[in-house]
Each structure stands twice: as structure tokens, then as C-alpha cells.
């Protein structure tokens, strides 16, 4: 499915279930999300994390509702399943799409300015560098007899300085490789919107309405 459509669908589903209270639909969405996640062949560790990390807010919410309010078991169940639906639907979108595909789709299909698209991609590619940079800054501090703790302003000063420096270098690098904000570009990998992207998007939304309405009537 087209990456932009996929993310739009995930956001719309999340919005919709925020305002409805049908736990079966939440559960069904979580299951569909999980099936989609499984198609991306995630590592076992990631699966475990996906199950256990939402467990904390989900159970906290459910327990709070059960103990503190008189909204009842049904509402607690709705909130519990809603958290899982959010996480699994969201993960199904992110785990089955690469960042570069998403950025290319946003640039080509939704026509966001290429400056933002590549700025975002450049920043994303810098993430692992930022982690190692923070380690290096702390080591550089220790080597000069200055311990930099997580709360030391100097650590952040250096990290921000490094990012500013990188962002300027990135901008220069992009310019020197022919990138210009306004100019048209060609695309090696063309990301198209096909008829079945519309079908999946609209079809899923219609199905969701039918399901929500159906269960609501019961």
C-alpha cells in the first residue's frame, strides 16, 4: 500500500476509535494490526516489547477506571483494548514501511516541500550519530577532568552545537550535490497512488463504520 495512504489510514482509525467505545472493534483492529506486524517478520524481542510496553498504560488505565470511577467494567475494557489498538495499528504502519519510502511518498504523492522531506530524512539518518556523539562528548569531558552528567548544561550545549553544525553541513552538502529548494526533481523510485490504494483506504474506513455501527446497535 502507498506509504502516505497507510499513515493516513492509521491516523484516521486512531481518531475514530478515540471517540467510540466498542471494545470488540478495538480488539479486532489490534488483531489485524498484529497480523500485519507479523508479515514484516519482526524479531522476537520486538514482539515481546510490543506486547509488554502498552501493558503498563493499558492496565494502569483499566485499574484506575475500575477502582476510582463508576464507569464500569465495560469502559475499562474499552480503554484497555484501545491502547493496544493504537499501538498495533501504528506499529503495523511503521514496521512495514521504510523511512525513505515514507519520505519519498510524502514528497511525490502529498507534495510536501522537498526541503522538509529531505531535511527529515537527513535528520533521521543522523539519529545513530547523535547517540554516539553524546558518548563522545561525555568521554571528552572526562578526559579533561570534567564529569558531564545527564543534567550538565554543558552536555546539551555541546550536543546542540554539534547538531547546529551538522545541520549547516547537511544543508551545504545537499546544495553542493545539486539540491535546490524550489527546483523540480526527477524520481528514481517512483511511488504511485494506484486504484487499490484508494480501495483499501476507503474500503477499510467503510468497514470500520459498519462494524462500529453494527456493534453500537447491539
Amino acid at each position, binding site marked *: 500500500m502507498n506509504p502516505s495512504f497507510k499513515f493516513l489510514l492509521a491516523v484516521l482509525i486512531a481518531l475514530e476509535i478515540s471517540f467510540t467505545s466498542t471494545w470488540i472493534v478495538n480488539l479486532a483492529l489490534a488483531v489485524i494490526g498484529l497480523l500485519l506486524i507479523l508479515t514484516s517478520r519482526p524479531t522476537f524481542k520486538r514482539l515481546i516489547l510490543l506486547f509488554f510496553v502498552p501493558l503498563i498504560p493499558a492496565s494502569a488505565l483499566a485499574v484506575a477506571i475500575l477502582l476510582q470511577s463508576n464507569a464500569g467494567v465495560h469502559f475499562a475494557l474499552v480503554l484497555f483494548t484501545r491502547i493496544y489498538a493504537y499501538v498495533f495499528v501504528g506499529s503495523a504502519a511503521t514496521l512495514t514501511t521504510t523511512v525513505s519510502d515514507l519520505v519519498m511518498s510524502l514528497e511525490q504523492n502529498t507534495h510536501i516541500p522537498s526541503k522538509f522531506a529531505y531535511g527529515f530524512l537527513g535528520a533521521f539518518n543522523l539519529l545513530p550519530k547523535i547517540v554516539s556523539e553524546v558518548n563522545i562528548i561525555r568521554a571528552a569531558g572526562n578526559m579533561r*577532568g570534567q564529569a558531564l552528567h545527564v543534567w550538565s548544561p554543558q552536555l546539551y550545549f555541546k550536543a546542540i552545537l*554539534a547538531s547546529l553544525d551538522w545541520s549547516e553541513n547537511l544543508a551545504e552538502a*545537499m546544495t553542493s550535490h545539486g539540491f535546490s529548494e524550489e527546483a523540480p526533481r526527477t524520481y528514481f523510485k517512483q511511488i504511485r497512488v494506484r486504484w487499490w490504494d484508494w480501495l483499501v483506504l476507503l474500503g477499510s474506513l467503510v468497514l470500520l463504520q459498519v462494524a462500529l455501527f453494527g456493534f453500537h446497535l447491539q
Partner: protein
Amino acid sequence: MATIAVNHLSFSYPTEDGQNPLTLNDLSATFPSGGFSLLTGPSGSGKSTLMKIISGLYPKFSGVITAGEVRLNDTKISDIPESDRGQLVAMMFQNPNQQFAMDTVERELIFALENQQVAPNHMMARVDRALDYVEITDLRHRQLNSLSGGEKQKVALAVIIAMRADTILLDEPFASVDPVARQLLLSKLSRLQREEHKTILISDHDLEDYDQYIDHLFILNGTGDSLTLLDQTAAQQKMAAFQRQDTSNKQLQLPATTDQAVIAAHQLTLTAGNATLLKQPAINFFKHHITLLTGANGTGKSTLLLAISKLHQYAGSLLLNQNEVAKMHRKQLYQQVALIFQDADQQFLNVTVAEELALSLKNSQQPAYFKDRIPGFLKQLHLEQLQEHVVYTLSGGQKKKLQILEMLIMATPVELFDEPFTGLDFTSLQTVMAIMKTVAHDCQQTMVIVSHQLFGLDALVDYHVTLKDRQLQYVGGLA
């Protein structure tokens, strides 16, 4: 083919108090079309600034042109639309880490071609050819972050070739490139000039190896107010002074059996990504000695220094004064070992030169020794006038000198230097080596130095270790 004409150019980086000190002052020169020109000058003279103005990056990203202009084929640089500029002029940067926007080699090349609006069905052929030209087809799908400095510069050249830029600017491109890769890049550039009539302008403070390739030698003086083309004889003389010193007959001692090991490795394995860089049954680095570590690009020299500094994981055993590095507490470790990073910016913690020096002196292990000597060292390194300057605004060479000095002041018993001599002009290089030698002796330090540049090093180092085929080995020769 393109002629670069610089007409009465003055350029300034405005300061915060509203002044416009001129970095370049009334420069004029013509870099001939289809020629291979070399631009040289001392560290901090403004070579990088001039290159970035010619490439059109400045004043867009920094500074202002206060007078004059640069013309490319009779068109003012600022009048050439950015989207057409790539085909006219492309630039390779001094710092290999900071010239890519994408994650892999192939994607970076495609990104550049997309910007030039090359038709998608022509892209692969151009990518193939560019990679083949620079002989890096095997790097195609590699992550750019995982490449060594020399490999990155080869990729940068491949991008320029794919973009088919008419004029190729290279700003001290070989600072972190080993001699073999440097020769390869130079011969490729020369071929581009001869066969495809590209105009090539390269800046470097080190003139070794250039004489057989270049047509013109330009000199920018230390204050940035004179840019001159040397005539044939003057150029020959200047180059001759830089003839590669024959280092092959320089002999060094092998470690003596009485030497005491300060760093000891056993069954040490270092990896980067999927590649095994080092598999070493045993090796020692010796106390109170200066050891030179050499090896081709990407063989893992920097990685070894990072591992000793607990900044890269290793398998096996790596002992520092009989303590396993991986198990040592950071604070305790860094009182015994300090790494002088390849990238000087990573070393700095404060804003101005004076603050940097003050911090080092405050926490030095030998403050009494350095207290009176610092002004002398600053004078020798020509840094005494720069004390109030922001460290990040210094030139590449000045940063390097400050970085080395402030780390020497720390007087840490073991100091590891990762390419300390990059960006240093000839005089600075000799001063820096003399200071390192004095301090190492007086403060009884142990040093390990990774360097591609070997000129004059026989006077500084005691031992030489080479890294080849994943093995470290002590050798007697310097070359």
C-alpha cells in the same frame, strides 16, 4: 570547460559587535579552463573560504562578499541558478564525514542525479560508471556512516563524476586519506582533466606528489590579501621543497625486551558492522615510548584507539596498566588515557580559546610544568592573538593546534592521537612535533600516534606498528 575568474574579491565573516574583519582582501586571479590548479597557503589563510565562494556555498551559508566577484565562464556565480550549478561546479569537502545527505552510497548518488533532473532510466548507468571510475563498485550498498575517511572521499568523487560537473573543487581532500588512496584519487582526477577536459582546482598545504599532475600553482598568503600564480621556475622550487622525503631508509628500533607494557592486548577482535578489522593474538604498547601506528584506509586504526578509550566494543582482552578497559570506570580510565580525536571539534568543551586552555590547566596532572610554558607554546603555534576567538570559528589547522596543545596540557599518562597532523602547514607541523616530543619526554608520557603523514616523524617516534591483514606488527622501517 570553464574559467574561474576572481576579481578584486573581499570577503568577511561579520563578528557579533558589527565589525567586518576581512578574511579575504582584494584577491584577483584566473584559474585557467581545463587546467589542474593547486591552491596552497598556510593554515588559516582562507583557502576553504575561497573554495566555498567559488562553489557558490558562500555567502549563502555564511559571511558576506564586501567587494568584487567571482565569475564562472563570464557569469557571476550568484547569477547562476542553483539547479544549474551542479553541472558547472561541484565540491569535495575537507571533512569527509559531512558531505552526504542519504544513508547509503547508492542512494547518495541517486539523490544527486534526481536533483539534476536526470531521467530515471539513465540513472543506473551513470551510477555504475561513476562507481567503476573510482573503483568502488563494492561499496555500492554500504552505509555511508560505516565507511572510513578515505572511502568517503572516493564516494564524494564518484558523486561529482556522476553529476558531470565541469569544474571540480577539492578542499584539502586528502587530509584523512592514506598515500595509496591519495595516489588513486589524484590519478583519477588527472584522467578527468586530460580525457574529459574538466577544470580542477584543489587546495592543499602539503604539496607532495602533485608535481606530475598540476599545471598551475597558486599561493594564498597567510593574511588572505594576496593570491598569486607562481611561474614555472618558482613553482618547481616550491614543489621541490616538498619532495617526498625518502622515508624508506629511515630505520627505527624494535621494542626491547626490557620495555614495560602499558597497553596489552590478547586475542583482541575488533569489528565494524559485519567486517572484522582486527584479530590479534597479542600485542603491547610500551611505557614512556612514542609509537606510530600506520595502515591503509579503513583497516581499523581509529577503531583500535576508540577501543582503548572505551568508545568502541571489543572482544578478547585489552589491558591498560593490567586493568581490563571494558571493566574500568570511565572516570578512572580517562585519568590514565586520553584520546585526541580526529575531528578537533569533538575535543572542545568551552567557547573561547582562552577558556579551553584554562580548563586544561585547571585539571592538568602537571599544572606546575605548563603554567609558565603555555604563553611560549601559544607563540610558537601562532595562537597567541586568537585567545578571545570562538574555537569553532578557527580554521582547520588552528583547531588542530589548539586541540593538541590543550590535550598535552592535561598531561594524561597515555595519550592516543588520531591523525593529529591533518590540516597543518609545514611550519606548524614541525612546531607541533617538537612540542609533542618535549612534553612527552618531560612529563614521561606514552603516546600512540595514528598518522598518514610520515614526513619528519622519524625524529618524533620510537617505534612503528603497522596494521595490515587484520594484524598489528612492529616493524623497523618507517615507510
